[in-house]
């Protein structure tokens, strides 16, 4: 394994705007009267509801159990009673089922998991079961159940565990703060995950614009055979495939998973959650989220309970001083725009971001001038401009020929496009159409 990271092709360098919140220590968000926990927080099957309206619940009590292997259980963020089980605005704009927990103000823990302090001598299978029981998902954005990633099929021969601390999205600093403030937890989490995978080492990849995080981690990393790998600043450095390439030089084949090149990638926040679940016995009921953006009065990083409405999070940050143009969950490059303040913090909500009017340039359908900037910027080496024109003319078959399925939707192409074409949306659309065609065929 080389010490020098490889540079992947393409990428862009947006103004990272992290200074707004990078130096703000993580604060615990105060207890609210009510939390609205969205049922389906993970990729895969939705969990099965275990409570009904009026039930008394304790903090950390199971609200829903995993609805299959690719599914995780859901726990109560605080103690109180179950309120309405109804629909609330979901992160994708469609109303989704959610459980409201009315807090009793006691914030009293139910029965915790048995803490496993001697994890070094615990069977990996037991540790993995704990990860699953604690309801941990990929907290970087996708929300893929962590235990599934930690269960590679026989014969994959996993040899590298990578912790993704790149946090290449502009504005977001939640992972950054976690690494600075809880370096030991991060490293321990990494070591536990490594043990689950049967490895004795791990690599943490961090973009060079976070020197304090690198320094803090390096102080504690050696003890657990964890290597801290500084990476050049280049969006999308934190995309799984690019990260693996930068650190190991292996290319994940199109349509394949990291495990096919013997790698497992986990998010920093997930690693901390694993540490807390194993060593402290705490299920995944809170997460660190950055609330930031130019219109925000006091940007910062908070530890929110899952189910905190965005309006409350914004209030905590002092509200706004100007009407923003967009409200996003996640970062500005891949985040999802919201039209409601009723959406709640989920396990994969890494940031709540307000974008000011002067930062937004609207998408237009101006013609492509074939400048090729998108081709240069594309980290997957496909031809965004041509694909977009094909999609514009509903030529999804052609888009498929042009390898649109390899697109990772990082948005680099749309970022650089001087014509402000909605390239990324074209690709998402094409992927949906191609997949539905495949489904029809089967």
């Amino acid at each position, binding site marked *: 394994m080389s010490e020098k990271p490889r540079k992947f092709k393409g990428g862009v360098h947006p103004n990272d705007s992290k200074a707004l919140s990078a130096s703000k220590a993580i604060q615990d968000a105060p207890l609210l009267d009510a939390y609205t926990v969205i049922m389906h927080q993970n990729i895969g099957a939705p969990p099965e509801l275990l409570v009904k309206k009026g039930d008394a619940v304790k903090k950390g009590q199971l609200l829903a159990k995993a609805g299959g292997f690719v599914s995780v259980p859901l726990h109560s963020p605080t103690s109180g009673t179950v309120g309405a089980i109804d629909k609330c605005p979901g992160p994708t704009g469609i109303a989704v089922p959610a459980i409201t927990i009315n807090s009793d103000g006691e914030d009293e823990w139910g029965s915790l998991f048995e803490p496993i302090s001697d994890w070094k001598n615990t069977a990996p299978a037991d540790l993995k079961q704990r990860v699953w029981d604690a309801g941990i998902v990929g907290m970087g954005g996708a929300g893929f159940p962590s235990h599934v990633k930690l269960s590679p099929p026989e014969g994959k021969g996993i040899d590298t565990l990578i912790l993704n601390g790149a946090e290449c999205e502009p504005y977001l600093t939640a992972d950054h703060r976690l690494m600075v403030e809880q370096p030991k937890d991060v490293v321990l989490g990494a070591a536990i995950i490594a043990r689950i995978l049967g490895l004795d080492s791990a690599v943490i990849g961090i973009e060079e614009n976070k020197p304090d995080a690198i320094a803090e981690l390096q102080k504690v990393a050696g003890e657990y055979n964890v290597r801290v790998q500084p990476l050049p600043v280049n969006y999308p450095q934190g995309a799984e495939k690019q990260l693996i390439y930068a650190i190991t030089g292996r290319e994940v084949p199109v349509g394949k998973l990291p495990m096919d090149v013997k790698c497992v990638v986990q998010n920093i926040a997930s690693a901390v959650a694993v540490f807390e679940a194993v060593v402290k016995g705490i299920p995944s009921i809170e997460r660190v989220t950055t609330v930031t953006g130019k219109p925000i009065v006091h940007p910062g990083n908070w530890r929110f309970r899952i189910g905190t409405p965005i309006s409350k999070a914004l209030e905590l940050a002092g509200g706004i001083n100007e009407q923003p143009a967009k409200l996003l969950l996640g970062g500005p490059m891949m985040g999802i725009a919201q039209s409601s303040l009723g959406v709640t913090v989920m396990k994969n909500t890494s940031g709540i971001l307000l974008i000011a009017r002067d930062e937004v340039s609207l998408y237009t359908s101006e013609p492509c001038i074939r400048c090729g900037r998108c081709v240069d910027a594309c980290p997957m080496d496909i031809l965004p401009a041509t694909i977009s024109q094909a999609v514009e*003319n509903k030529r999804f078959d052609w888009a498929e020929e042009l390898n649109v399925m390899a697109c990772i939707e990082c948005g680099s192409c749309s970022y650089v496009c001087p014509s402000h074409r909605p390239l990324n949306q074209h690709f998402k659309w094409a992927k949906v159409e191609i997949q539905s065609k495949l489904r029809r065929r089967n």
Partner: protein
Amino acid sequence: MVSEFLFITIGAILVNNFVLSKFLGICPFLGVSKKLDTALGMSGAVIFVMTLASLVSHLVNHFVLVPNGLEFLQTLVFIVVIASLVQLVEIMLQKLSTKLYESLGIFLPLITTNCAVLGCVVINSKAAPESIQSTWYGATIYGFCSAVGFALALILFSSLRERLDLAQVPKAFEGTAISLITAGILAMAFMGFSGLV
């Protein structure tokens, strides 16, 4: 000798391109240039027919028509030869590649009336007796190169048209109109080669 071959080659492919300079074979040029794949298939078919037609016509012309003073039958006989060759290609193609056969559609039998083929054969038969074109191999090479020139124009044009498919051409100019304008500009560009040979 070598230079003469070079002249025939460059002349037939670039300078006196059948489509863009002699304006022969415009019908398939416009008809089967909507897609690159079909254009490639058509190019193959035309190269096959034109090369063989040149050879067979030369033989027929040289050994049957001219000795018997039957030059006035040239057009008739040439067309019979071409038609049979096209028939051959059609039968074979239907068996070998049904997809290509269907996408070429009516334009395949229409190679018969592709004036580029007849033009090529007639030009061969009119070649000066001392020129290389009046030998059987010269005629064949000329036929082959002319067909390659036709193929070149067709492939270029079809790839351009695939791009035009994505363009927002004004309603009145959609389809054949804009294709003809494109062909015109292409022909203009090919004029740059004039004088090379």
